[in-house]
């Protein structure tokens, strides 16, 4: 009925078309934004999933005692340091007896990762019984062979333009036909530190670096943030100094993160001489950065605690601090913890300030404490993204997936805490 009366004139119809169009602009804007989100996730997932598998080549290796441990001492150090290259070459020679020329042999050997020797050494150290036996061992393929296996090297491209030559492809296919090539779950990626060889590189070192930095960040920013919020909400009188602190905190939240890195560089590294490239300094810088977020979140939580709780405690004779710390703060704690976790999730993704304090370096060892040289997950992503090696593309995407998984977990934990513990007043 309404439509009939309204749509009588041409002008009304025009106005209504305009209305529909306007509504659609809004829908399209939201859809475009979300489509971009989906597109980005899809692009990264597509590129990264393959990195969770690693191509392995199975060779019959005879663990010759003469090569591994000629003295027969079974000393783990000696066994790890032995030269396993001849064993791998012998294993390859069994499959390809026709390859005899030195240069060809070297080329053939390049199908196996440079890290293959270390993998063998590791196996022997863990299980010295292997010595003197002959076993089929699955060694990591080189990055090129791995990329070929995953279909990321196009055999139709001119031979000069690819590093994986026709001959390599022929050898690879021979191995494949004999069932000596398999894709296995890439444990190296989760168990080792950085490496120049994509197939040997892992994120464990970076993950530990991130963990230690966040630990330092939490230990500093959580108490400081909460105490500041408590002071500003519960104790501070409304005067110029309080105003100054408030304005200051709001503005600190807007300072570009890279500036915090410069603060860390000139004050903590150059002035206090704290050790460079360590999670200790990284954590301090991240703490100063997340502090405003935690304070702002905690204040709004404290504000939501009803006044009658304070009145009741004061009425029973509790002092101001007793009221605050025995009643108000415990009630606000879950909310403040939620805010802190969200702040930490932000800190986990920060890269720029860490670049400034030297947490950007090629570090193979896995850090054991807050004063060991380290990188962090996002910095590792940045370093790998910059690497010319093609094999790092999928590993960069995989590292991003891992980082995003951690972020999602932290956010879910925050949501869980909020749902579970928060009270409605």
């Amino acid at each position, binding site marked *: 009925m309404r439509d009939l009366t309204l749509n009588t004139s041409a002008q009304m119809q025009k106005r*209504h078309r*305009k*209305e529909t*169009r*306007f*509504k659609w*602009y*809004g*829908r399209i*804007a*939201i859809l*475009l*934004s*979300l489509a*971009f*989100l989906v597109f980005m996730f899809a*692009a*990264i997932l597509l*590129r990264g999933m393959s990195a969770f598998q690693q191509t392995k080549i199975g060779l019959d290796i005879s663990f010759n005692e003469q090569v591994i441990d000629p003295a027969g001492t079974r000393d783990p150090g000696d066994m790890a340091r032995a030269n396993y290259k001849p064993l791998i070459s012998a294993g390859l020679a069994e499959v390809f007896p026709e390859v005899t020329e030195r240069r060809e042999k070297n080329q053939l050997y390049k199908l196996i990762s440079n890290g293959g020797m270390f993998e063998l050494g590791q196996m022997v150290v863990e299980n010295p019984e292997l010595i003197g036996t002959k076993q089929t061992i699955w060694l990591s393929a080189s990055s090129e062979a791995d990329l070929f296996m995953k279909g990321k090297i196009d055999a139709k491209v001119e031979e000069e333009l690819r590093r994986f030559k026709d001959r390599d492809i022929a050898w690879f296919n021979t191995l494949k036909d004999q069932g000596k090539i398999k894709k296995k779950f890439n444990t190296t990626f989760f168990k080792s530190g950085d490496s120049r060889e994509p197939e040997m590189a892992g994120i464990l070192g970076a993950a530990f670096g991130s963990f230690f930095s966040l630990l330092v960040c939490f230990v500093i920013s959580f108490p*400081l943030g909460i*105490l500041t919020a408590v*002071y*500003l909400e519960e*104790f*501070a009188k409304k005067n110029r100094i309080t105003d100054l*602190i408030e304005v*200051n*905190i*709001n*503005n*600190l939240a*807007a*300072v*570009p*993160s*890279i*500036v*915090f890195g*410069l*603060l860390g560089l*000139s004050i903590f590294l150059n*002035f206090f001489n704290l050790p460079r490239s360590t999670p200790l300094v990284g954590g301090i810088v991240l703490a100063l950065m997340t*502090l405003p977020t935690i304070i702002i979140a905690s204040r709004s939580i404290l504000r939501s605690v009803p006044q009658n709780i304070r009145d009741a405690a004061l009425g029973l004779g509790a*002092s101001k*601090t007793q009221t605050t710390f025995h009643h108000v703060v415990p009630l606000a704690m879950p909310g403040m913890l939620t805010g802190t976790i969200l702040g930490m999730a932000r800190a986990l993704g920060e*890269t*720029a300030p860490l*670049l*400034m304090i030297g947490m950007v370096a090629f570090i193979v060892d896995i850090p054991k404490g807050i004063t060991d040289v380290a990188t962090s997950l*996002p910095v590792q*992503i*940045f370093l790998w*993204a910059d690497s010319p090696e093609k094999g790092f*593309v999928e590993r*960069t*995407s995989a590292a*991003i997936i891992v*980082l995003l998984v951690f*972020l999602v977990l932290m*956010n879910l934990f925050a949501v869980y805490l909020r749902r579970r513990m928060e009270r409605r007043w």
Partner: protein
Amino acid sequence: MNSHFDASVDLNLRHAKRSTQLKELAIKSVLIASSLVAILTTIGIVLSLSFEAFRFFGKIPFFDFLFGLDWSPQTAIRSDQVGSSGAFGVVPLLTGTMLISFIAMVVATPLGLYSAVYLAEYAKPKTRNWVKPMLELLAGIPTVVYGFFAALVVAPIIRSMGSGVGFEISSESAMAAGLVMGIMLIPFISSLSDDVINAVPQALRDASYGMGATQAETITKVVLPAATPGIMGSLLLAISRAIGETMIVVMAAGLAAKLSLNPFEAVTTMTVQIVTLLTGDQEFDSAKTLAAFAIALYLLVLTLGLNIIALKIVDNYKKKYA
């Protein structure tokens, strides 16, 4: 007869009161001390930046830095060569920063504003409850991820589109960095604008409907004009974000300090130069490393200035309808 007893109780009470007071005082000092950390951080930032920047201006004249049109700090380390002083004009960095921020805002403003209008005025509560967190997800993704995406996915797409129409585009371009940064900024604009639009009193809308206006007419002619100051504030905050953003531009924008407004060329920004100047080997006294602090000081002044203005505008706006 009880005078002795009374006195002791009195003494005890006074003692207890005193110790409580002391404790309260101690706790209060701890509280004050921790809230001073935020102030100290600000002082630390300002002092450390200006201290190094002043040392820089001892070597390079202030006006050469502020108005110089040439940026080539690399020459400064080879003291035996001609032009050994290097050139430290910040103008090309500023134009690069502004170009990328402009592209980002061109992307983010319509998407963010239309999203905010739809969410605030049209969307059902149910839709709003899941769309809003999804949009805010965009702000939660680490910028290094955006940078990787810009360099690896967006830049090649732009490049192949360019060569499709016979147009050479370098692999690092202001366009790729700006587009991706724009997406990152959407939630900054949409969230704050959404709040601002919601703060417009319902009475204004009702009056407009009463006059026979459609919903779209009400929004464009009544709600948005009323919300303009707040929306301006949210845009300024987004610009300040864009200027200070580092990882996306480091990974996707390039290093060439050219005075150019061509979005398909590689440009460099202030943050990119800070990173390049300070991540190599560094001697702490060279003009080259000190220059990074001068740029950072400039950056801080720009972003803080924008931020203070924006907060002021939003504050005034909120007071108007509160």
